[in-house]
């Protein structure tokens, strides 16, 4: 943006106010350390240096709608400690993540994905079961995991490997999935077919 052009164009804006060379009423007081912009202009008017008509555009507005706190440079810092936001279910959450770790993706843009996350489902189930539970906390924890397994949510312990795959190198010398007899039959049929075709 070419600032100079912008501001030069603004000179033509009709405000009904005249600005004579050398007189820029508002900048008579550039002190920021004491008071606010409002108090400075108000005091200039009170002292008779600035007339109401020469006052800035925003003066009446700020008088009618003052800011919630006066914008002074120096202010007091509250001494109260900042509250740490914690919920009762954070205990369950901590246990869940310690035990199972994070193994799923969550779309943070979409708030409804929170309801689908395994941790949220675990917490809601845990709290439901807790109402009528008589045993220990560890038993309740395991019972929740079992309940979710039945619903279709598989929870794997942190560090536990998934089921072994055929691609595993150690399995290269293992028995083939097809039986020996079936294989022999298959070879016989294919070989005999080819031999008859040749002749």
């Amino acid at each position, binding site marked *: 943006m070419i600032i100079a052009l912008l501001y030069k164009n603004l000179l033509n804006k009709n405000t009904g106010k005249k600005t004579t060379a050398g007189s820029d009423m508002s*900048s008579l007081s550039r002190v920021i350390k004491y008071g606010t*912009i409002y108090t400075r202009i108000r005091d200039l008017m009170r002292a008779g240096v600035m007339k109401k008509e020469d006052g800035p555009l925003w003066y009446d507005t700020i008088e009618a709608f003052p800011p919630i706190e006066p*914008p002074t440079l120096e202010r007091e810092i*509250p001494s109260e400690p900042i509250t740490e936001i914690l919920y009762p279910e954070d205990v369950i959450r901590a246990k869940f993540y310690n035990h199972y770790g994070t193994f799923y993706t969550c779309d943070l843009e979409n708030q409804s994905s929170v309801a689908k996350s395994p941790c949220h489902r675990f917490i809601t189930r845990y709290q439901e079961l807790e109402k009528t539970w008589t045993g220990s906390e560890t038993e309740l924890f395991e019972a929740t995991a079992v309940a979710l397994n039945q619903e279709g949510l598989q929870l794997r312990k942190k560090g536990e490997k998934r089921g072994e795959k055929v691609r595993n190198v150690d399995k290269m010398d293992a028995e083939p999935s097809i039986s020996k007899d079936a294989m022999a039959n298959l070879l016989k049929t294919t070989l005999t077919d080819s031999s008859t075709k040749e002749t």
Partner: protein
Amino acid sequence: MAQLKLFSRLRPQRLCSLCSFSSSPDPVVLQQAAAVAVDKKQTDPLSHPDFFGVKELFTLKDLFDARVHLGHKDGLLDPYMKKYLFGIRQRQCILDLDKTVPHLRSALNFAAHVAYRDGIILMINRTPQFCHLVEKTAEECGEYAHTRDWQGGCFTNAWIQFGPGTRLPDLVIFFHTLNTVFQEHTAVRDSAKMNIPTIGIVDSNCNPNLITYPVPGNDDTQSAMQLYCRLFKTAILRGKDKRKEMEGKTD
């Protein structure tokens, strides 16, 4: 009546003011006074608490959905922003939206009033991510934006740099109070020096002290920035439309 006579004996100079209470108030006079008051409220923007209907532009839920309550980490917290915090969750500052709502309303109201009075509004933002958005917003509401390097004497030395009689903005809106090196933007201090009121979105790592109408909120998320741009654009355009309406009525 007996009481009135007593007062008039003690303070004769106040008799004139007390005379109006001698008879019961005339219902016609009362009605006329009420009509004038209502008329004034409708015509004079300053006597109406919300002349431009700024309250209906947003709700607290809109702010929450746009993630305005998310601040930075606790180590970056500016001590003056402590009072605007709801708390800290897992070391991330959460801003109190109950405090943000009245601040944002007063800021939008002020912007609309300045626009109503044909004031020049300058929008400032130094994050490259939202530079285009802010420039586009300013263009759409017929005001100005400055999203590039700030020249030292832009405000304080304007009459030398741009020529005598340069008119400075009547309101500066900061969509991001910090510059590219996480220090307070020079224009915050310079606006205060040149007695220009400012509106600023202050995040948990910003200093809100010199800003006339601070709005504690998230200034780094796309959704939050789009919300602010939309709200300020609407408020400014409403101010301008009311101005045209008023000018049309008088003509």
